[in-house]
């Protein structure tokens, strides 16, 4: 029973990733896509957590935090790029 619930929630998550993927493809604007990517990252994070429960193993718990960190960094980088065209800024040369 527990397994079934977990499996179905996992499937639900994957489904929402697929749905979000639509936004990645469709756009229409770049921020949309980045946002979708961010959402996918978050969903993935949840997915890994559920999977860990499903397998009853704590082996994947590091991954959860790491996804959180990386998807944040990624999002910031993308946002920077969209906003300013440069990812890492340099001090303007006066």
């Amino acid at each position, binding site marked *: 029973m527990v397994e079934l619930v977990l*499996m179905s929630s*996992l*499937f639900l*998550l*994957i*489904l929402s*990733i*697929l749905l979000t*993927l639509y936004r*990645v*493809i469709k*756009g229409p604007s*770049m921020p949309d*896509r*980045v946002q*979708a*990517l961010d959402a*996918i*990252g978050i969903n*993935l994070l949840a*997915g*890994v957590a559920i*999977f860990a429960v499903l*397998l009853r193993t704590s*082996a*994947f718990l*590091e*991954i959860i935090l*790491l*996804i959180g960190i*990386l*998807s944040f*960094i*990624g999002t910031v*980088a*993308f946002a920077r*790029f*969209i906003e300013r*065209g*440069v*990812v*890492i800024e340099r001090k303007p040369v006066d």
Partner: protein
Amino acid sequence: MSWLHTMIVIPFIFALFVPFLYKFFTPRIHTGWFVFIVPLLLFLSLLKYIPTIAEGKTVYHSVPWMPSLGINYTTYMDGLGLIFGLLITGIGTLVVLYSIYYMSKHRESLHNFYVYLLLFMGAMLGVVFTDNVLVLYVFWEMTSISSFLLIAYWYQRKKSRYGAQKSMLITIFGGLAMLAGFIMLSMITETYNLREMFNQVDVITAHSLFLPAMLLILLGAFTKSAQFPFSIWLPDAMEAPTPISAYLHSATMVKAGIYLVARFTPIFGGNAEWFWVISSIGLITLLYGSINAVKQTDLKALLAYSTISQLGLIMCLLGLGSAALYFGYGDEATVYAAAILAAIFHLINHSTFKGSLFMVVGIIDHETGTRDIRKLGGLMGLMPISFTLTIIGSFAMAGLPPFNGFLSKEMFFTGVLNASQMNIFSMDTFGLLFPTIAWISSVFTFIYCMILLFKTFAGRYQPSKLEKAAHEAPLGMLISPILLASLVILIFFFPNVLSHYLLQPALIAILPIFAESGGIDVKISAWHGWNTELFMTLGIVGLGTFMYIYLKKWSGVYGLFSQRWTLNAGYDFAIERMERFSEGFTNQYMTGFIRDYVVYIFAVLIVMLGGSLWLFDGIAMDVSNDAPISLYEGGVVVGMIIAAITVPLAKSRLTAIIAVGVLGYLVSMLFVIFRAPDLALTQLVVETVTVALFLLCFYHLPEFRKATVPMRFKLTNLIISIGVGVIVTIIALSANSTRLFEPISSYFENSYDLAGAKNIVNAILVDFRGIDTMLEIFVLTIASLGVYTLIKLRLAGRD
């Protein structure tokens, strides 16, 4: 090292000192004087061998070179080798002497000249005195190379370079063919030694490689001896300084092919193919050379063609004489062996008279500044000694008494006449061809000899056309031709001395069946009575004189043959076409367009792997061991496919990179699903950093452009990519179905005991396969340094 070895090596060693001698003594002493010692010394020491060889003994020594491979520096001297050795050193001495006067010590770079000359001399001695076929090949190629260098001695001239290249290409081509033949022989007999090969003639004859080996070796001989159709290099080789023409291109190097044929007669002789190929090629060359010689206007070119024709004559004789081996020892063999004797005899005679002729032509060139017979004439009174020498030389060449050419020409006729009566090798059908063609060629030979003599020395003196006022050459320059010319006469009067000491031993070397009898009993004499041969000679003189007188009337015939269809034009055309074709062909596929290269690679992949799967039945399909598929796994896979497809369809680069990012994240999800936490971690971080790098570089890269790709391209791309995908899948499925062994990885599950680590992957990474990790971070470091240098270091310019 025996003396024989040393003799071969001496010229090479001396060559090393020549540049120094040149440097220290020029212009006080002509470098030639130092070099002169070498051939003289060698000649004298070779003379010492004559009695030994005449007794029927041979000299054999071996020094290990590559004993493990059976390649040894083995020297061997028999009658055949001795004759060649004497020619090489004897004429070499005279040529060096001649060159001292011919080559100016002020203007010419003598060190080059004498180094090449010595190299050639050593190489040529090596060719004739070695017993190991590979060593023979070594020296053989060295003669080609030194000839190449000598022809291009005046390397500023375009024609010199052209001639040098031509001779090199042709002779080295022949050399390579010969090498292939040698290798075949060595495969059959399992030795590289000629002596041992001679002992296995039966094995060789029975082997299936007999014919190819024979033809390949003959190719080598024919190219070197300028036999038809490889003769074209010889006239162009006349760009070399005249001493060289006299030495290499008439007396010695071109005779290497003759030597080779003679040397291999014991192995191949007595076979119809050998007989026919050699004698017919020789005959054709004889005819071709003599006919062509008549139309030449350059004296050296005329001599070159005459050399070709004379070489053909010798070759033909060797072919005819090889029939002796078919019969085995006996009377019939003796009859045909006379041809071989004639060949050797003519070989010597040719060297003497042709050498002197070349030297005289050199003198004429040197003193008048031209070799064009249209500008020359009337030199008789101005250069009386040269005139006399020319008479001797050209009469000998034309086969007139009292010169040695007469004797060998008569023997030649005897040979062809005997051959025409043979009843083997289908000679009964074609036999009559031989005397006929021989006779026709001799007529032409007579004509060009007369041209050489009279057009130069008779007629009107035209000083206006000459660069210098003609006068007789200095004595030093004349010594060599005078010596040779006197030999021409001496041999005519005492042929049997020569025969006894030199010709008979050589004959035995070529036809070992006569070893026991000590040669054949042929007394060479000028007078045989009124036989066919004499009538043939008389006919030649008659018709030849007639045709020479009316030369102007009929020489227009030559004009009928278009220049476009000559062998030379064919060669030029072939070289040019080869280069043009190669360029066109290579440019066709080497487009410089990376897509094409990738297409080739993948096409090869598809064809080879697909072909192999199909031909060798490599496809297997077995899903029984597969893990089950869960719904969410399917979902991830679908997501990945969607993300991947998005990439090529994306209109904007950012979309594409986001899709790749999604793909990367989903891959790490798969890693999680397949229980690989370390991988998932790594994949995530790497993916993020990669995406970050993409973004960093995007600032500099352009937005996707609407690609204007032709449909053909797209279709190819599609086919190739589908093919790759299919092949990869099929092999993956098959490999998955044929798991033949348990993986070794169960060992690693003891990692806690073995390496003190509970994380097996980590244990493998840092311990079991630590070097992989070490090198992996090494790669990473190199890459980052590379990135750094790429961005910081920017050199302008090309190199």
